[in-house]
């Protein structure tokens, strides 16, 4: 059981971290609370499913096409829907909620409400210290690790990454220093949705695809981001692991665990917020008034 907890926590933590980092980046740079973030994760899963089972493409090609098309769609949505109402915070909020609902209903209409399964990308298991880990979960872990490393490289070792961090730190000063804030926001949205889409593509074989699959990770992701501190990347990764392990422990040890995993995760979040209102690694409130 201990091994199960360790493996499940790590794998789920990887997926959650990919989602939470993207959400956190968009919030930090563009100040958008992007409720539709996990809807893009769902879209990527559906796209991957379609290309794989109906289009007959290979795994790699299907995955790449799914990620690229979802990123393109997100940029289009940002341009047409979010940017015209950027100044009105409330309008942005419900625009993203409406986008999520639209995607959900579109998928419900075109694929129906039932659960669709995606075949495993690679079969077989590896035995590691007495635990058998399916290759699929190992793949999720590797992809998550690689993407986290890539995100770190992108943000800390490229000029664009520097611009993104500067904009997140202080939008007005970044603008005055000659950075094109709008383009930085576009790049951030594209990059973050790309992370969510990759998470959707690699995670679908171990979960199932259905139109409401975006709601559960949405709540978990929000809990992680609040727990780690909005806009903090380190916080997102650590928060993702904390929440994933709390969920895994609840599921495997308590009798009604499947129902209580959300309660445990959200309870941890509330407890952290009571002690530190700005999250584990967030910036204190008093600075921005």
């Amino acid at each position, binding site marked *: 059981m201990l091994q199960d907890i360790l493996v499940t926590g790590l794998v789920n933590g990887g997926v959650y971290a990919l989602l939470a980092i993207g959400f956190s980046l968009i919030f930090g740079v563009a100040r958008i609370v992007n409720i539709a973030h996990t809807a893009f994760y769902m879209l990527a899963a559906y796209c991957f499913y379609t290309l794989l089972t109906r289009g007959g493409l290979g795994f790699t090609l299907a995955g790449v096409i799914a990620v690229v098309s979802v990123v393109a769609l997100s940029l289009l949505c940002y341009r047409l829907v979010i940017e015209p109402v950027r100044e009105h915070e409330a309008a942005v909020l419900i625009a993203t909620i409406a986008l999520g609902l639209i995607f959900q209903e579109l998928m419900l209409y075109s694929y129906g409400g039932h659960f669709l399964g995606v075949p495993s990308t690679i079969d077989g298991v590896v035995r590691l210290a007495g635990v058998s880990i399916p290759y699929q979960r190992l793949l999720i872990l590797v992809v998550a690790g690689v993407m986290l490393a890539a995100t770190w490289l992108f943000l800390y070792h490229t000029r664009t990454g520097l611009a993104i961090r500067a904009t997140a730190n202080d939008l007005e000063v970044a603008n005055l220093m000659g950075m094109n804030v709008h383009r930085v926001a576009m790049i951030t949205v594209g990059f973050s949705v790309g992370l969510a889409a990759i998470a959707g593509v690699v995670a679908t074989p171990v979960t199932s695809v259905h139109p409401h699959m975006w709601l559960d990770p949405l709540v978990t992701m929000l809990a992680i981001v609040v727990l780690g501190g909005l806009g903090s990347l380190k916080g997102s990764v650590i928060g993702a692991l904390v929440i994933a392990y709390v969920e895994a422990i609840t599921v495997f040890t308590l009798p009604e665990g499947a129902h209580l995993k959300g309660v445990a995760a959200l309870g941890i979040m509330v407890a952290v*917020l009571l002690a530190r209102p700005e999250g584990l690694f967030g910036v204190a409130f008093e600075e921005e008034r």
Partner: protein
Amino acid sequence: MYMLRRAWAQMTNEVLVLPSRTMVLVWAAGLLLLPLVYSDAYVLRILTMTCIFAIFAASWDLLAGYTGQVNFGHALFFGAGAYASALASLKLGVSPWLTIWLGAAVAALFGYLSGFLCLRLRGSYLSLATLAFPLIGLGLLFAFPDFSGGELGVSGLQRLIIGPTANYYVACVSMLVIVFGLWAIADSRFGIVLHAIRDDEVAARASGINTPRYKLTVFALSAAAAGFAGALLAHYLRVAGPSTLEVALSFQVVIWGIFGGVATIYGPVAAVFILYPLTEWLGSFKHIGELRLLIFAVIVLLVLLFMPRGLAPWVRDKIEALCPRCKQRNFVFRKKCRLCGAPLEAQVTRAERLVGHQ
């Protein structure tokens, strides 16, 4: 006789001069008189639900619009009211006329508690943290199905009154009383303090306002109204199910509130009266019935692109103009202000326009 003449004078001088007030009057009178002329059970059913959700949306607006505590988990209060009232009337056998008050009280307690937990949170943190509360409740309901009925909820409740028209009047009258009550609260000195807390909490505290106490009061008040609505719905549908706590309902109320225009009370109510019957009506068609949520979302999105501040403020700005001198509202076709007589269209000379004086 004097009272009557006085009331008539009030009417012509205060209500009928402004198109927005006239619209509210016509709307309220129309709601009360409708069953006398048209009592189709289906229409009354939809309007009853609309009235109940209007209470819910208005209570969200007091908390999120006026006080700035943008609550993403307002369904918690709705569900708390529904479940408390349902369990009390079913297990204890108390009349539902009493248990709906119990539902409101329990919801107010929940509101106070979640307000207490959120006192130190602000902005997006508060929104995202409050989103968690109803989900914690939902998880607990599923984990203890003996008590809560699990996925099926608590069913077989007593109705408040028998008959569609009577039920409609119960919902409609409580909606009018609560909504006008919330409006009066929001318009009073108390409401001004709430505006101050939303706009700058530090400044409000520096002016000697005990902001935590105000925030807790508003949380409890708004939760009580939402819980009352939840209890009404539970007894109307005769079931209190887990759908009263879902994320979808929390998001729904956010959409209603922002679509109608925040910090107005009448905005969210108008939004419910437009959007809820619209989705029901769309659902009655065979072909597009499945698409009604999609159409709903698209309509909300399109309206927001043109009226980012919401529907009600946009309409109000179109039909009423602000007097440049005394800042009172006037019908847009008037030449002079109805109170101070200042010309409504400010005479802007060319020079002033050049330097940006308007």
